[in-house]
């Protein structure tokens, strides 16, 4: 736990942009709620197809006004529009698609991520909900997607570590995270540990280490985030 003064880093929209830049053309992606949702703004017009686990491919922008159709929502219950080449299918099909490895990039939020690539994103101890909570589709997505990225604030609103040696919250999945994108840094999860790759403007490696529980490996080509 830490009580250091909070470092600002980059805003949530910029975290989303940094993740968007990591996703190559020709990818199928699934975006979780929170910061990941903002990524859709940055990939609009690019050759990237968004899947919604409710059972839809080629998900477009949020629907507004006349576009809104009560029969066309995403997994967060927001109305969306379809893009050309869209398809609709059942949840059973959708979750089979997720488990089967057809999603190239899944970007999720998290309460905690460990240096082993574990993460916790569905339940908070002390919520009073115990082992019963809103699991949703994240466990399936986490075990199935080819690349699982976390996009989140580096620390909690109380300044507590979110990047830990071991998660203390109930896990979503074990050993699945490839990269962590925060307001302060881009961190790779590797067999040797967490590798600090990029820093937000004005942030030092020491700043990041101070708000990260595990010892970070400093990349030989550590650089400032490019956006």
């Amino acid at each position, binding site marked *: 736990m830490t009580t250091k003064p909070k470092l600002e880093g980059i805003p949530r929209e910029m975290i989303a942009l940094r993740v968007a830049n990591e996703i190559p053309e020709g990818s199928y992606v699934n975006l979780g709620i929170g910061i990941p949702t903002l990524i859709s703004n940055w990939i609009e017009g690019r050759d990237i197809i968004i899947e*919604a*686990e*409710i*059972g*839809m491919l080629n998900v477009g922008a949020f629907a507004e006004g006349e576009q*809104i*159709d*009560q*029969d*066309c*929502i*995403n*997994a967060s*219950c*927001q*109305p969306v529009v*379809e893009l050309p080449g869209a398809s*609709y*299918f*059942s*949840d*059973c099909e959708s*979750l*089979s698609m*997720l*488990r089967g490895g057809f999603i190239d990039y899944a970007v999720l939020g998290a309460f905690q991520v460990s240096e082993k690539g*574990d993460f916790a994103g569905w339940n*908070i101890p002390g*919520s*009073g*909900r115990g*082992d*019963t*909570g*809103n*699991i*949703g*589709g*994240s*466990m*399936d997505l986490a*075990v*199935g997607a080819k690349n699982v990225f976390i996009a989140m604030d580096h620390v909690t609103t109380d300044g507590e570590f979110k990047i830990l040696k071991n998660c203390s919250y*109930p*896990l*979503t*999945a*074990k050993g699945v995270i490839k990269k962590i994108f925060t307001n302060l840094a881009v961190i790779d999860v590797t067999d040797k540990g967490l590798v600090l790759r990029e820093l937000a403007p004005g942030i030092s490696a020491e700043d990041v280490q101070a708000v990260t529980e595990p010892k970070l490996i400093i990349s030989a080509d550590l650089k400032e985030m490019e956006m």
Partner: protein
Amino acid sequence: MNKLFPNVDEAVADIPDGSSIAFGGFFTCGSPIFLTEALARQGAKNLTIVSQTIGVGNWEINLLINNHQVKHAICNYPFARSVSKMSPFEKQLKAGEVSCEVYPMGTFIEKLRAGGAGLGAFYTPTGVGTVVAKGKETRLINGKEYLLEYAYRPDYAFIHAWKADTLGNVIFNKTAQNYNPEMAKSARIAIVEAENVLEPGQMDPNAIHLPGIYVKRVVKVDRPKIKIGIDG
């Protein structure tokens, strides 16, 4: 083989106490709200309900909860999104009046799919190393760990359809498809409420989402007026 019932009340009239019922729908989308309301009027008790969420978006489920018709829920997303809001179901759960099983989304619907497909169980990688795995068998297959999950078949399924014919063939609209097809297939008696009821031959046989063999009852309903959102 005309499966048309005159109204939702007659379509649910014979459901006995103690039944298990799967409800299609994903939050506000594609939920069988008219059948759910009819079941609240009908009053069957000690129900096991199978539904993605228990009264979040599919608010009509709360009629059953508030009537104390439900004793057990099998679900994926039981509670309000915010931990500070407590749904009627969460209140009853905390009071020990109902019980609840939660599964990851894929496991939740795959259990029903397996049931309808006559399979006994399956091994899934989802949930390994999490609380979901508590008390469950695991197996290494080609070096990867999987959880054993069992098939499940409810007695009834309540299905909301865009179009159905009198033989029970169904076409869903867009994301209102969601859990509906596999829930219908898993149930011993699938009951379809349809916004449009057609004669056999009026739908493209190549574009049927749910073949009529899976459907026992069809009832015409209005297109519901839905306010999209789950924070309400």
